[in-house]
């Protein structure tokens, strides 16, 4: 069975899901993500699906559930890197993942997660700059 590597960078877990995992392997991966989130005390989880060329209802549900579970643990989860062909197929299947946060790629995912963390600090900076231009 394939092992999916889980990286920890800047207080964030990054998981790159690979093609052709069996349903059992996918459920094990979900477990691993949750255990690792709990144990490493990260506050962000990025699920990178840029290597996937198909998401069926089963995989889609596990991904969507995982982001909900991560939130209950107390971290933010973001899905990144979905290809257009997959987005088309998922919407045609009737599977919208309405409550799942998304970003274009890992980099943007990291930026969004950092924003959540630094939100107040950056907001103050921003306003200060504006006033300087006045």
């Amino acid at each position, binding site marked *: 069975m394939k092992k999916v590597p889980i990286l920890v960078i800047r207080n964030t877990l990054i998981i790159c899901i690979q093609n052709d995992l069996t*349903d059992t392997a996918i459920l094990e991966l979900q477990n691993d993500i949750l255990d690792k989130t709990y144990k490493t005390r990260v506050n962000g989880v990025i699920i990178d699906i840029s290597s996937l*060329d198909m998401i*069926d209802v*089963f995989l889609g549900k596990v991904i969507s559930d995982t982001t909900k579970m991560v939130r209950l643990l107390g971290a933010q989860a973001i899905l990144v890197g979905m290809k257009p062909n997959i987005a088309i*197929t998922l919407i*045609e299947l*009737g599977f919208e993942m309405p409550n799942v946060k998304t970003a274009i790629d890992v980099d943007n995912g990291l930026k969004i997660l950092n924003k959540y963390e630094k939100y107040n600090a950056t907001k103050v900076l921003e306003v200060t700059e504006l006033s300087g231009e006045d």
Partner: protein
Amino acid sequence: MILGVVEIFHEKDIVIARQTARELTKDMGFGLVDQTRIVTAVSELSRNIFKYAKSGRVIFESVESGKSRGISISFIDKGPGIESIENAMKEGFSTDKGMGLGLPGVKKLMDYFKISSELEKGTTVVIIKWK
């Protein structure tokens, strides 16, 4: 013309059916979105065989009609059959813990969809996608 057959028996066979669909549709020159639609449909219906009938068979065939070429895929099992096809085709209906999006979803992804089933005899689903 039969292009390939995958026996569904172990969980891993769902992955093999997917891989077979991916290779055949690529070879036949389907566009990327259609390839994805077909691979996704094959995944859904192979999983249904594995989940509900334990074992069965997926047959990939090339079909022609006039100038069009397409792929026809049959999913055949000798499982418990479906009590009410009308219910099974409803979005959100599942006798399992599923989301019940599989059958109605696959129908939307394909150009042709036919399901027939007899209790205690088994279920057959045939789907076609034209190029």
